[in-house]
Every structure is written in C-alpha cells, then in structure tokens.
C-alpha cells in the first residue's frame, strides 16, 4: 500500500471507532483464515499485536479492589 493510502487508512482507523472495530474483526478473521488462532495472545504477539497479551494475570489477585464493589461499601 502506498504511504499516503496507508496514512489515510491509519487516520480513519484512529478517528473512527466503528471502522476500527470492523477492521479489527476482519483482521482476526484473516488470521483465522491462515489457520492461526486469533484468540491466542501469543499468536497475536508474534504478529506484532501486543495488546492481546494478558500479562501477569496472577497479579490481578493482589489488587486493592475486589469482587463486586466490596471496599468502602
């Protein structure tokens, strides 16, 4: 894709949440079409998509918030 077309696409996706959602959905479908698991954060990370990676899940247990509004409540 030419640089200006890429820039246009980037601007569109940054500014239009609906377009972004559709693009992301299509992207995941394309990942699946190659036989990869689009729900696997590791696979997505290999493709450069870090946002899917759940990091240090166990840490979530130590937070100062808790189940269904239970502090100061």
């Amino acid at each position, binding site marked *: *894709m030419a640089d200006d*077309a*890429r820039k*246009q*696409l*980037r601007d569109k*996706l*940054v*500014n239009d*949440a609906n377009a*972004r*959602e559709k*693009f*992301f959905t*299509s*992207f*995941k*479908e*394309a*990942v699946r*079409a*190659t036989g990869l*698991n689009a*729900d*696997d*954060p*590791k696979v*997505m990370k*290999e*493709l*450069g*998509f*870090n*946002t*899917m*990676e*759940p*990091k*240090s*899940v166990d*840490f*979530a*247990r130590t*937070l*100062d*918030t*808790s*189940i*269904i*509004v*239970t*502090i*100061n*409540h």
Partner: protein
Amino acid sequence: MSMEKVRDLHEWADVAERNVLVLNYTMTCPLACDFCCYGCHPKRTEKMPLDKARDLISQAAQLDVFSSVGFTGGEVFAYEDDFLELADHLKAVGLPFTAATAGHWGKSKKHADDLAERLVSRGLRRINISCDTSHAEFVPVESVVNAATAMAQQGIPVYIVGTFADPKDDLERMLPELSGHPGIRMFSKRIAQVGRAKKTRLPPRAANNYEGTCYRRIYHDIVVFWDGKTYPCCSTFNRATKGLCVGNAFEESLEAIWRRVDNSPLFLMLKRRGFGELYEAVAKYNPELYQQLPPLNSSPGPCSLCNAMFSKDSVRAGVEAVADELFVDELLASTNALQQRSIGGLLRAPPSDHSGATGGADHG
C-alpha cells in the same frame, strides 16, 4: 496460553464469570458508614425505576455476553419487593445473579431463611455481605451471622467482606463464629480514600511502582447506576472518576455501551498490558500529556491511579487518543506481518492450496 485459559479475577470467586451487568440500584441505605464510597444513608431516595431495571436485564439476556447480573447500591435489600420482582424476571430470562448487602435483613432468622430460599431458588448464586467496625455501628453482628448462614444453607458461596482502617483489624476476629464455616469466606480489605473517606486520616499505605493492570483482565463489569450513567468497572472510584463514564444506559442500548467498552483500545491496554506500558505509550506519542499524568508510583493501587488519571476530561481524552493510535499502529503492522506470512505460504504451497489464505484484513 489460549484466552480460554487466562483466568480473570472473578474466577477465583468460585464461579467463572464473563461480563457482568451490575445494577447500582439505589443510594438508599439503612446504614451511613463513615467510609461509604457513594455517601449513602437512609434519607437518600435515589432509586433506579423498576421498569428500567427490568429492561436492562432483558437486554443483557438477549445480548448473550453477560454471565450474570450483580446488584449493589446503596442497599438493594432496602427495596425487597423490587428485588424479588427482578429476581423473578432474571429467572424468567435465565440469568443468574449476585448481590452485595450489609445484611440488615438478617435481624430475624426466620425472615433471613425465607428470603435466602426465595432468592436462591430464583438464581442468586453468590452473596457478598459487608461487615466491619463501621457497618457494625448500624447492623448487629447477629444479623450478619443469620444472613450469612441462611445463604450458606441454601448452598451458595457467601463472601463476607470487611473494610478496615487499621491493617491489624480483620474479620476473623470480628466474626469468630463464622470462621471456618463451610461455604463462607472472609476477606479483609483496607479503606480506599474515596467517598466519605476521601478526607479521612488513614494509616499510610505504601505506593506501588505500578506495573499492574485493571482488576478484570478479559471481561467487564458494566455498572449502571440508578440514573442510567454507566461505568466500565466496579472500582470503588468509578462514580468519582468523571472520565470513566461510558454512556447512559437509559438513553442508548446496553449493546452499544458494551461494544464501546469491549472495543476500547484504552480499556484493552489497561486490562491486558497495564498502566506501565500505557505510560510508556503516552511518553512516546504525546510527551506533553505525559507531564500531566500523575506519577506512576503515587497510588496504592490501579483504581486509585485510574481515578487520578481520568478525573480530568482533557487527560482522559488525550490518553484515549494515544491508546487508539498505538492500537491502530500495531494493527496495521500486524496486518503487514500477516500478509507477509500469507505470501510466504503462497510461495511455498502448491497452487491448489492458495484460495482464501491471503490476509483479507487490509481494507486499503
């Protein structure tokens, strides 16, 4: 690791939850705890209209992304008839539910037993009962014991949660009669500096050099308050964090709000990658905005940090824009990587294997 195996915080809570619709039904409360995050008391009258609550439950059932409905407030048991009617509706639409309460309705053991049977038979699958020195000023410990044992006898998990100023205080000492009781678990927490406790002098808490994430890693607690205003989490700071409001569920569909939250690059970032990486992204994309962020190590936890970050609309908008940009840049780079991979596959594979294997996501 597949996403299915990633445990969300709620899964240590006996039941694997997906998204939860939380109805913050009322600000009425028979209590007036000195640390209440929402400043509730007996004279407050704000309450969600019953028909609105029914409608939200119907929408949640139709959406099929919510695994349960949670009730909180205020005190939802202050409107027992409403609660039972909503429980009937939940049963009719096939959604289980949970509730947070102070247990004042346990004053009469007979009433507690009867109410527990009626609610559990309609789908109540867990109850959180608040009990600590502040709550005990208004609700006798005996009521809490009656409420907790009534629910436990019905076979649902009972969580008793105490919130204390002094880290040496805990529920085991307050409720020795329930310690070790089958089906009843106790959690002792520290008061957060919000609501009536905002200006309370509390023992100092160590600030974290915060690398953590939002408390829910995958799914969301979509919290609708009595006035329809909706928040993406059960943070005790939610209502106090202007920039966290994600819409009004009385003015638009629950689906629209849920999609907005589920597709938000900002929330994805906070849930999956955490505050540390978000700060790095802001520093890279918008160094001026970075200077306006509260120091990463200035808060004892993620909810207080989130509150400090998103109380200003301008900061919230700027940080959201950074998350959008980062998300799109990674998405476009990944699309390229996928195309390269597919092209590589095409070069290696025989012609008959080609169809449908190219990356189709690049709409440009």
